[in-house]
């Protein structure tokens, strides 16, 4: 579904990245593959939207980054959630569930 990625809301991408990093630190490609995996391939995140989002979130203080070695010995930049990031994840999760319930009930209403 190549069209979904362009329609990905900014807020949604942020939430997905936060969620992905909640368990472990990952590099860019890892994040993108992980999102693909946990959304069962619904969302495919391309570098063109991934990197701006990562840097914006790092600037906002939700992520921190450091250089490390990848599984096959390549240098890669790893991202990890900060304390503020975890808080943000909580807030956004809460918001999202409110919205999704609201949307669902709105759509379910006749």
């Amino acid at each position: 579904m190549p069209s979904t990625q362009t329609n990905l809301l900014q807020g949604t991408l942020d939430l997905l990245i936060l969620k992905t990093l909640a368990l472990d630190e990952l590099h860019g490609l890892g994040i993108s593959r992980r999102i693909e995996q946990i959304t069962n391939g619904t969302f495919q995140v391309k570098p063109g939207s991934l990197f701006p989002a990562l840097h914006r979130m790092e600037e906002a203080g939700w992520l921190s980054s450091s250089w490390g070695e990848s599984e096959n010995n390549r240098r890669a930049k790893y991202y990890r959630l900060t304390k503020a990031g975890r808080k943000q994840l909580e807030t956004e999760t809460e918001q999202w569930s409110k919205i999704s319930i609201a949307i669902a009930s709105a759509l379910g209403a006749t």
Partner: protein
Amino acid sequence: MRARVSSLWRNLMQRNRVESELDDELQAYASLLADEKARMGASPDAARRAALIETGGMPQLKEEVRDAKAGIMLDTFWRDTRFGVRLLLRNPSFTVVAVLALALGIGATTIVFSIVNGVLLSGLPFPESERLAMVYIHFTPQNQEHGTMSIADYLDWKTQSHSFEEPSLYTNGGWGLFDLTGAGESEHVRATAVSAGFFSTLQVKPLLGRVFQRGEDSGSSPREVVLSEGLWRRHFGGRQDIVGQSIRLNTIPTTVVGIMPSSFRFTHDTDLWLNLRINPPTRRGPFPYIGVARLKPGVTMRQAQAEMDVIAQRVQRANPTSYSNLSFPVVSLRDAIVGKVRQSLLVILGGVFSLLLIAVVNVANLMLTRAASREREMAVRLSLGAGRSRLLRQLLVESTVLALVSGLLGLAVAFGGVQLLKAWNPGNLPRIETVHVNGTVLVFSLCISLLTGVLFGLVPALQASRSDLNTSLKEGSRSGTPGTARRRMQDALIVAEIALSLVLLASAGLLLRSFALLEGVNPGFQASPADLLTMRISIGGTKYREEASAIAFYQGLLDRVRSLPGVTSAAISDGLPPDRRADYDTFTVEGETWTQDSNPAVTVALTSSDYLRTLGIPLLGGRYFTEHDITGSELVTVISESMAKRYFGGRDPIGRRMKQSQPSLGNPWMRIVGVVGDVKYTGLDSSSEPAYYWSYKQNTSPMMYLTVRSTIAATLTPTIREAIRELDKDVTVTGVDTMENTMARSVAQPRFRTGLLAIFAALALMLAAIGIYGVVSYSVSQRTHEIGLRMALGAAQGSVLRMVVGQGLQLAGIGVTIGLVGAFIATRSLGALLFSVSPGDPVTFIGVSVLLAAIALGSSLLPAWRGSRIDPLVALRYE
């Protein structure tokens, strides 16, 4: 927060590193992607190509990342700023009061700083000027702290010291006026004689030609002159070929060797410099010279002074009849030029900083009051998940915006103030031409603006971010009692404000009192200063070389001036009050033993016969001079009261004889015919000085003061100038002014510092009053409910009034107490600036405390009265 600051730093300052790191990151992504594709079976080449295509155009991606990064920083900053500006605009009365208070504070501080920066901090216009030193002499009988030395002292210094590169010498206050003749109209010019090393010591370069060279100051050297650029352009039309030519000074041919640019100024103005032609001295004197020299590298002023002390001991041992208490003070050039005003300026700087601090405290208080009404806003935002640091930042952005606007306005105030100050120079400040609003001043001004913004923004910000969510929401819900933490903070700020005001008031009060005493000092003459017109008359060195012709000229001048309409009387003298001391010398009294310590140098004034009468110097015994006291008759003198009391062994001095200098010099005896009151000749702040007068007809000088007494003195200037020109067009008349203006000018510096500090104190008082008023009326409005309750329960209006005023006075009491302690410490630094008032003067301290308490009472009365008029019914319903 630190991570945020460091990331901002990274973005702004290390752009290139950020860029290349981004490159690395994208490269890494592409290669990881290629690896993945290779694992899935693609050939390495195909995998890399596909990976690059998928990663997309790198430049475009980088652009997007950059936008995302910059966006978030700028976005929040802009939002905060816009929000802040909107808030400030919505509350215009708060904004205007705060901006005005701060702008005044910042403007005043900037003005004072630009003076301090120019006068005290900026470098002197000489290379390595910190190594330049002035060398003076101090000894009895001369008794001047920084006295002028003789050639013999200079030669002792030059041959015995090793601390200085090249001891040099120049004449203080000019060598006098010279007649410059030939090439155009004749002119009296101011000359300074300097030793050969003078210019090379200062390391200044001539505009044309050369300066004096080593060895050109011996008795056999040719007469040479270096002209100032001003004289060269004025008198010689800027002719380049004048260098090397001979001009006539007092008819003596002198060769022009160079021209100094007008940018070269030393301690006093002069038209030209002559080379000193030093012959081996036959005696120690006269004493017109000041030493100037450059310390050898690595030698400190202190070391140089230590060496000069040893030399002084040696010189004194060799010349016991000339000197006692001999020393050669070494003073850095900077101290010599600005030493006297440094303390004044530092006191003024301290005063203006206190004022700024008071303004900041005041605005902080206003912000706190306002923060109260925003407490719910903050609590709501906190509960909705805003970070405390985010709120803190927003409050700081708001206060910084306020401070920067005030700073800009303050800068405008400073620009105007500095221009005014330079045009007017009310304090007679040295080096005023170096005062500018320049880069340093601008940076200073920006810094204090930001600092004040942070200072007064931090207090309410910390308060707001520390406040407990629950209580805020609850407290705000009903106006019961206001937040006690904030109340305490406000009270503390008011106490600080009152304490600071008291320190400032006490300092200003002391200066005002001492200035009033200084202005009230009796200068020693009874004529009204507005009725006396004084000027300096210079007859030059050639035309009237014969004493008789000079006396005849002065006599003709006096006759002429006396006949002018409106003139009551006229006199000439070689000294005038309040600070134009003539000569001073030791004296010998017939029948009293002579030592330097018992017969120190006193003022000697040459006067025409009616000088004492013209100024109204009271006659205490004997008689004034008369027209019969002329050359050839018995020499007579009139002495001052304190001279009569101190040096005549308690007996009546009238009829006794005395003479100038020590007995061995063989001066003629003079009969004392009168005793007159003491006159201040060395400044209004000096102690009463012994002096004696003799008639100019017994001895004359080429430069004298003319004093005209008339009820229309101020309007006589053109008439008198015209009369003198008709008598002799070559006579130079300078410094024409009334005695009233001259006396005012002599106290210009104390007036300046006193005036400034008084203005600061008045502003501080005003700010304190506003501060107290604000806090008390705010607390009344917060306690409306409580007051209503009290009144409903039967409290009388009077008791409410007392309660509220009591609160204001309590704060004032604590503030005054702390302030008194501070003032006691701070005013000790005023010491040397005070005239017959001690730093801890109880009258001043009590006076300013009462004044401040009265202001506190006054500014809490109005809100208290309003509080006592509260209608209990309305108040209880009021929310």
